[in-house]
């Protein structure tokens, strides 16, 4: 914690660890270490004085801490070249020991991306597999909210600190993640401004923490693709969803498939590689639905996505009725709105 507060980089810290003997050093030994520059030493000294206050603040904000010396520290992170020295978190850290799938993708997804992210987020929840993602706008947030919505657990790795969740619009989702038994963690302590490079480091963490990395939508040059590179470096399996060849948002994923990532159409495609058996799918009980509701759902049988007008045409009902019924079905989690009056069956 001392080094985190003193803003010592992970790289310096790793060097320090190799220099260090097993026993826990006191302040003077640390300050005498050749790894640190004069500036570092100064900030370590200041941080040392501020430690008590900082601990109180953490306690006050109910922030939990896990350092790399702790048992709960996930071993998978040590696979990184410079693993984070400390993790600040809300929620259940034991989640990191479980088999998990990371669902990542563009911050500006297409309708198709939204649909896929939602589908896989939900499927993971159904199969009780935790998802790992970055709580970002777009695919990350959608996948995680889908998991939470269907009673699953999800791990959000932040590039900002815990008290300033970025983007702010996902604050409510963050609260839901914790209350549903998920985990939100970051290596950054509060009080420091959030810098762009932190999100790249966050991507590294996501790559390390998951067992399988599923890319939903990504342009050929994007933040998502950096995550993929990190994951490849430490030997994670990459899964990708194929997309429209003309859509720039699928150019990255299609290229991944071309170069060997597994084309994924179903969660089963991932699970079989790890010899995991899917839990029995829940049979939807449609007997409680009204005649019209069933009629609307039947319209979805041949089409993944339908427009309100199409549904009205297929069922022969009026627009007012259809608009009403679709909301009811969405609340009952049979369909999902993908915007622009388009709906998908889930």
């Amino acid at each position, binding site marked *: 914690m001392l080094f985190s507060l003193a803003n010592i980089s992970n790289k310096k810290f790793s060097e320090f660890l190799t220099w260090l003997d097993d026993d826990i050093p006191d302040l003077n030994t640390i300050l005498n270490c050749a790894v640190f520059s004069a500036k570092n030493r100064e900030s370590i000294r200041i941080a040392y004085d501020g430690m008590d206050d900082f601990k109180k603040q953490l306690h006050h904000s109910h922030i939990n801490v896990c350092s790399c010396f702790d048992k709960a520290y996930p071993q998978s992170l040590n696979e990184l070249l410079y693993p984070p020295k400390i993790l600040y978190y809300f929620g259940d850290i034991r989640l990191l020991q479980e088999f998990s799938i990371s669902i990542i993708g563009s*911050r*500006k997804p*297409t*309708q*198709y991306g939204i649909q896929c992210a939602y589908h896989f987020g939900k499927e993971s929840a159904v199969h009780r597999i935790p998802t790992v993602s970055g709580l970002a*706008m777009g695919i990350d947030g959608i996948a995680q909210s889908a998991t939470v919505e269907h009673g699953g657990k999800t791990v959000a790795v932040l590039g900002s600190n815990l008290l300033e969740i970025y983007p702010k*619009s996902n604050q*409510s989702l963050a609260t839901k993640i914790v209350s549903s038994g998920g985990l939100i963690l970051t290596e950054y302590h509060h009080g420091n401004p959030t810098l762009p490079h932190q999100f790249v480091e966050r991507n590294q963490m996501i790559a390390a923490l998951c067992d399988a990395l599923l890319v939903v939508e990504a342009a050929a040059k994007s933040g998502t693709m950096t995550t993929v590179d990190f994951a490849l470096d430490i030997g994670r399996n990459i899964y990708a969803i194929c997309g429209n060849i003309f*859509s*720039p*948002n699928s150019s990255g994923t299609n290229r991944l498939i071309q170069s060997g990532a597994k084309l994924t159409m179903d969660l089963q495609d991932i699970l079989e590689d790890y010899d995991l058996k899917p839990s029995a799918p829940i049979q939807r009980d449609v007997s409680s639905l009204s005649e019209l509701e069933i009629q609307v759902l039947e319209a979805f049988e041949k089409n993944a996505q339908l*427009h*309100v*007008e*199409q549904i*009205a*045409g*297929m069922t022969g009902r009026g*627009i*007012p*009725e259809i*608009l*009403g*019924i*679709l*909301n*009811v079905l*969405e*609340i009952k989690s049979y369909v999902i*709105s993908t*915007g*622009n*009056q*388009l709906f998908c069956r889930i």
Partner: protein
Amino acid sequence: MFHQAISAGIEGIDGYIVQVEADVTKGVPQLNIVGLPDVAIRESKDRIRSAIINSDLHYPNKRIVINLSPSDIKKSGSHYDLPIAISILDSEFKYDEEKLERMALIGELSLNGKLQKVEGVVSFILAVCNRPDLKAIIIPAENAQEAQVVSDVDIYIANDLVEVSDYLRGKCVLEQVKKTTEKETTKEAIQPNFEDVKGNLVAKRAAEISAAGYHNFLMIGAPGSGKSMIAKRMSGIMSSMDNEEYLEVSKIYSSVGKFNDEILRRLRPFRAPHHTSTTKSIIGGGNQALPGEVVLAHKGILFLDEMLEFQKRTLETLRQPIEDKYVQISRIKHSYQYPSDFLFLAATNPCPCGNHLNPSKDCTCNPYQINQYLHRASKPLLDRFDIFVEMLPIQFDEFKDTVQESSEKIRTRVLRAQEIQLNRYREKNYKFNSAIAVRDIETFCPLDDASEEFMKAAFDKFQLSLRSYHKVLCVARTIADLQESDRIELQHLSEAISFRRVLAKYWGS
């Protein structure tokens, strides 16, 4: 000798009676006008002299003083030409006093004595109506159209100065404006018509609800998705103006000289100012504190196309007139309160390039730009909309060949729903569902347990704000009225929610 004629002036949009007094005495020939006249009135000296002489009438070569009373109000406009000329001629012809005292005169003179069109005729006539001692008014023939609006006094039309003079001497009779007290039903087809809009059924439905309950309505969608098409057809499905509204709107349009055929046919005004419009042109103002677009849209529709392209300041000033239904404009010399009770209709792109969330085209904006763009409209302004609809430039084969519903059909349903509302709120100071007071909402929009539970689930699932609750109920009430249902059913509520979700989607809850 002292002579007198009666005319009227205008303050804001309201008229008032002005006495035009003329004193014709011996002395150096000259014409002086007092009583706070503006430049147009001062210039009338020369017009009047030429008009009288060119009409082959005798202009007295005497010292003439004209007083416009009450003399403490600043007067403007060229319509005082006729009363001034008549009061001068009175010294010559000794007109029938009885007639002159009971009749207001309005009209600008051209140099050959012809009467010219003036602004504000409806306000003048209404001012005459308010004075029991006045029985009639003479106006220029060109203003006859707008004069049909009022029926309480005798309105005579004249073509030139000689006709008026002869009439007052009892030598001829003037033509009266034909009175049209009955509502002129519009037999002709509504143009433009909803028949011509292919697809976009959800937006059409929203337009119907909006027209029926006077709900402010925002359309958001890519370019070419038909937003403006829908907006232009909105006034066609609304009820025609009743007598009171007709009079108010006529007064406004007449006072700015914009009276037109559509108002005569009792069609509601449709105002669509361009997005480069200034705050003053929208709200009103200037030296004379003139009415702006919000006033011209009174009892009609104010449509802001490309709403987010308007200046932020301009948009925000709309909040007060929308809420209060009037606008107060104060300048150094004038302070007027204008009515501005309009249906607020707006359309916007979802981002600077217009293709954000469009499945068939790619958006080239980054998330920051989109966010900045959408937040040009403040939360309080967005809260004034009841209905939000997303629109897409796509059409489906299912509806390619089907006949689209005509405006006439939609209008019938709208009128029926409005009748129900007027009946329900007859003891309240509001007329339509959009204006239900918060304290009355439980009385008029009761929910059963199932609906209540559904509302809770929906608000939780779709992350709607509590503020939306009231709005959703109002819209659901209108939907129920459109189906002539006494109670708000779950089905109505669910449909109402779908018009609210777009707000949460684009602007967060």
